[in-house]
């Protein structure tokens, strides 16, 4: 049961991340690309985190993974906002 849950979570994470990568490549404007960049720091990382926690629990590996995903999740909006401001400044 646990292995099936891990497999499903990893599959969702991989599909979400690959969709974000394709979205960045396909979109036309910088702001549309940033939309997919931001999405890449939410769904995929949390699914990988859930898979690791199902497998390992809240040990050292689980806590380190929580730290990595927390940095991605909290820093994602900041860097997207900063990049959007830079894009606007370049256009002006």
């Amino acid at each position, binding site marked *: 049961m646990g292995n099936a849950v*891990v497999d499903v979570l990893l599959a969702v994470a991989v599909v979400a991340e690959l969709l974000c990568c394709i979205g960045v490549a396909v979109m036309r404007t910088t702001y549309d690309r940033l939309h997919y960049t931001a999405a890449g720091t939410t769904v995929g990382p949390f699914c990988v985190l859930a898979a690791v926690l199902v497998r390992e629990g809240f040990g050292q590996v689980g806590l380190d993974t929580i730290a990595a995903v927390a*940095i*991605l999740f909290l820093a994602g909006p*900041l860097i997207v906002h900063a990049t959007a401001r*830079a894009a606007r400044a370049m256009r002006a």
Partner: protein
Amino acid sequence: MNAFEVAALALLTGFVPLLWVCLREREIDGVAALELAGSLATLVLVCLAEAYHRGIYVGVAVVCAAVTWISALVFARFFSRL
């Protein structure tokens, strides 16, 4: 191969469209692709550490996430001053 190895390999293919954006599109679009590449690299490192049961290497993923954040802010600052 276990599930985490397969996931890491599948995630690695995501670098291809991002590399294409970095090479072919404008510089600021490359920065957007680079930010997503950093997130992707962090997830690949987590998956590889879990796949090979080397828990200590998850620390590398934590550092990768932090460096991604810093580098994106530096690039954004640089391009906003151009």
